[in-house]
């Protein structure tokens, strides 16, 4: 091929992964690429993939940081495999080669493929020189040296000259995918607005990368990606953790209850704390506490005092909060507990994702101690799920656990911006001043919620606590009959939340050969796999659950209409076990993955086909 005759391929979607050493700026390249794509009208999904260490040893596989972007017409997952991989050093090539499609394009920074570096990555010979890359289209670009020269020419000091190489790689990718350079340059200028010199250098390097890709003959094809057919509206790109924080802020505003967050930093939930700490102008009172227990206990105190109280954590932190969740259940106060799940048990896989906290969330407390449980289904859905978790908690006066995970918490996708006024109203049962009928444990007939009697309100002085209380009056009580009654009340109160939930949706026909059941953060993958099989004419449908405790009321009716049910989850079968307890009359097959990474569409399609074949 010669210059100017590069073939343009039309593709519904492509997957690009930027990988390099921690500190090479791969997250930034990835974000700029995805934001620009979104602004150009593509649907997208992104996921950062970084090590637990802040700066693992230079040039090692352990130190590889990546950012995967899936863009296209209709996107639900981050994509199984990459069309294009950018590998800024031998280690990042080694760590990511297995996720590149056969025949895919690999852009390498050839300057980094020196003996010291490929040996450190664990390769005996230079991988660019043996046959290991023969099935790929490899573009060897002098990324470091070219970027450095431009930086020096633009007057940067030698020590800073190395830092723009990520922009060179981004420029090359921008050419391959026909991204708008002006849009990208504007993004860079906004990002570095505090340092015009750095901004200018980065833009110059970006353009140089673009021109380089255009001028060499190594680029065999450019891709044209059709824009998404999305509902009209205003859009933005959003990660699950930010969406969670914003959904909580929206619930606070709509309910008129000021937001209080007591939290302790923990991967991968910290972003929620960081984000909410920014929004003091929205009256968000955010405390970074001394530990997880203080996080939830300060939230319980805040809830008692009338705030919309939240604590955010991940699995290990949730374990520490267990006793206090019991206190919130007993005192019947609203608290939202956000669990951004990661691989467990113990410290486990802090930066990887899993759905293995479900049984802890449902049952991991002393005594009969039910909570409402909501599981967000995608990065953008975290907004609505957080909003609903807060609404249910406040209106039903009991703690709600919102489950997300590292994958959707840190991943991002397009988000159609709602208006807060269009969100459902939130009306907590707040007790009126001097209400002559007020009793601490008098319940609403329908919801069984007690009233929220806020300190400072005249005539409502009362005492609550972790000791069992007498029905209606709320005095300390060890009466056997009263205890049994109160246990049933607390449980029934949570069960009755089902009266206020939407019916469970079925994607596909309402009956068929196979019902795929999934929950929480795996929706993108199960949805794409089921759609794929439906296209092939298979009688497969999907029931993806967001409301976990209680389950939607029509759940059993749905299950009854399918020949086979397979429950897919990123654990060893906890939701299937739960369904066996709630609806024991059905047979549940299990499809599980416990590798800290999401399902791929291919593996799900294969697995479902297998279930369809077996009698």
């Amino acid at each position: 091929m010669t210059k100017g005759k590069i073939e343009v391929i039309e593709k519904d979607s492509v997957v690009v992964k930027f990988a390099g050493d921690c500190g090479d700026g791969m997250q930034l390249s990835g974000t700029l690429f995805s934001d620009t794509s979104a602004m150009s009208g593509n649907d997208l999904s992104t996921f950062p993939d970084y090590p637990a260490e802040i700066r693992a040893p230079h040039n090692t596989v352990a130190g590889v940081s990546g950012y995967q972007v899936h863009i296209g017409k209709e996107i639900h997952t981050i994509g199984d495999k990459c069309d294009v991989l950018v590998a800024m050093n031998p280690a990042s090539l080694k760590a990511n080669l297995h996720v590149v499609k056969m025949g895919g394009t690999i852009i390498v920074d050839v300057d980094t493929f020196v003996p010291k570096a490929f040996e450190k990555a664990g390769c005996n010979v230079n991988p660019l020189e043996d046959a290991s890359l023969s099935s790929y289209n490899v573009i060897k670009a002098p990324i470091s040296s070219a970027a450095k020269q431009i930086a020096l020419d633009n007057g940067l000091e030698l020590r800073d000259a190395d830092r723009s190489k990520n922009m060179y790689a981004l420029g090359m990718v921008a050419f391959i995918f026909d991204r708008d350079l002006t849009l990208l340059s504007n993004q860079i200028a906004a990002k570095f607005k505090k340092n015009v010199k750095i901004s200018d250098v980065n833009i110059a390097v970006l353009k140089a990368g673009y021109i380089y890709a255009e001028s060499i003959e190594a680029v065999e094809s450019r891709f044209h990606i059709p824009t998404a057919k999305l509902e009209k509206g205003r859009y933005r790109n959003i990660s699950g953790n930010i969406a969670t924080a914003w959904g909580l802020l929206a619930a606070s505003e709509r309910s008129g209850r000021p937001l209080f967050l007591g939290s302790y930093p923990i991967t991968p939930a910290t972003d929620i704390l960081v984000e909410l700490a920014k929004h003091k102008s929205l009256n968000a009172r955010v405390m970074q506490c001394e530990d997880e227990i203080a996080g939830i206990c300060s939230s319980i105190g805040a809830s008692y005092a009338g705030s919309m109280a939240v604590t955010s954590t991940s699995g290990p932190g949730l374990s520490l909060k267990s006793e206090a969740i019991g206190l919130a259940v007993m005192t019947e106060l609203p608290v939202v507990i956000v669990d951004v799940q990661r691989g467990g048990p113990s410290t486990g896989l802090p930066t990887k994702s899993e759905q293995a906290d479900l049984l802890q969330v449902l049952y991991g407390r002393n005594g009969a101690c039910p909570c409402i449980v909501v599981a967000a289904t995608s990065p953008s859905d975290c907004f609505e799920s957080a909003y609903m978790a807060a609404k249910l908690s406040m209106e039903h006066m009991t703690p709600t656990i919102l489950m997300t995970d590292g994958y959707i918490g840190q991943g991002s996708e397009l988000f159609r911006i709602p208006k807060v006024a269009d969100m459902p109203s939130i009306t907590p049962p707040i007790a009126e001043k001097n209400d002559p009928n007020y009793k601490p444990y008098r319940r609403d007939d329908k919801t069984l919620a007690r009233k929220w009697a806020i300190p400072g309100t005249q005539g409502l002085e009362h005492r609550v606590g972790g000791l069992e209380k007498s029905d209606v009056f709320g005095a300390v009580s060890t009466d056997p009959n009263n205890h049994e009654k109160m246990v049933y009340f607390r449980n029934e109160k949570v069960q009755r939340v089902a009266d206020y939930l939407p019916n469970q949706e079925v994607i596909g026909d309402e009956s068929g050969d196979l019902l795929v059941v999934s929950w929480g953060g795996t929706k993108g993958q199960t949805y794409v796999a089921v759609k794929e099989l439906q296209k092939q004419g298979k009688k497969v449908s999907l029931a993806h659950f967001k409301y976990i405790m209680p389950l939607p009321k029509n759940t059993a009716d749905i299950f009854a209409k399918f020949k086979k049910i397979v429950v897919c989850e990123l654990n060893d079968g906890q939701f299937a076990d739960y369904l066996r307890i709630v609806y024991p009359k059905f047979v549940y097959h299990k499809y599980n993955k416990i590798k800290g990474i999401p399902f791929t569409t291919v593996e799900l399609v294969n697995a479902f086909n297998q279930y369809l074949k077996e009698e």
Partner: protein
Amino acid sequence: MSYNIIERSDVPLTKEDFASDQMVKWCPGCGSHAILASLENVFPKIGYKRENFCVISGIGCASRFPYYVNTFGFHGIHGRATPIATGVRVSNRHLSVWVTAGDGDLMAIGGNHFIHTIRRNVDLNILLFNNQIYGLTKGQYSPTTPFGQITKTSPYGTIEKPFAVGKLVLAAQGSFFARALDNNPKLMVDVMFEAAKHDGTSVIEILQNCVIFNDGAHKEIADRTTAADKQLILKHGEPMIFGKDRNKGIRLGAKGLEVVTIGENNITEKDLLVHDMTQEDSGIHNMLVDMKLPHYPMAFGVIRSVPSPTYDELLEDQIKSAQKNSPIKCVDDLLNSGDTWEI
């Protein structure tokens, strides 16, 4: 500040207004009865509306307290009274928040929360009932039990050095520390009133007698017949004089505090230390907190009360400033901030 922003009652309240309808279930002779009476006495004196008081506890004998006071009350879980109280106060600065807890609750399981609450200087009043024993679980040693004491869990004597509450408070940069005795209600009411007026975390260590499991733990200090010689009741701005003949005093010597006798060796009142509870440097306060029998009297009253910005006030200031200066006034503004585009 608190003292000025919390709404006061239009009508004078009495002790009876603060007594709840619950039967008080502490052992007869327990020091908690006197502490409860003192609190019920000081609340009307402070003068806030009844609904603006909030009493919060953890677990232990002392933690039954909220049930007996007719205000808003919250009986929490073991060790967690201070974070719960922090959440209440940070949510609503128009409440007067009181924590009642024992030495096990605040020094052992809640030790971490205790020091962090103090360093943040959240505006709370903490009453630490120090009976040097676990009462509710029937007689195990606590972090304040004296070295060597035989208890159910230390049948050969404890081999742990006890915490000195006051030293811990000062080390955590506490802005208020007072000490009182369960058999001196007037002193308790006085220091509780001072605590209420102080902005920040006020810790009052109350030496309390557990009649069942550690009877007489503080007897040597508390015994009324010898108290004048064993107790130095500090008063801000006054020389440190004690003794039944009011002729003993505390002087700052080359190696620390010294007990001297007025009239001996040419010592006059002028040679004595004058108590300054507002002194920011905690050196003297530390020495006062550390005074022990038999060489010294034990110090009581308000030992330290230093003005210091409170967490809740600083947070409020930040919120007000952000509300004034941030372009984001509502969640719709936030949702539409940054990069967005129309489709």
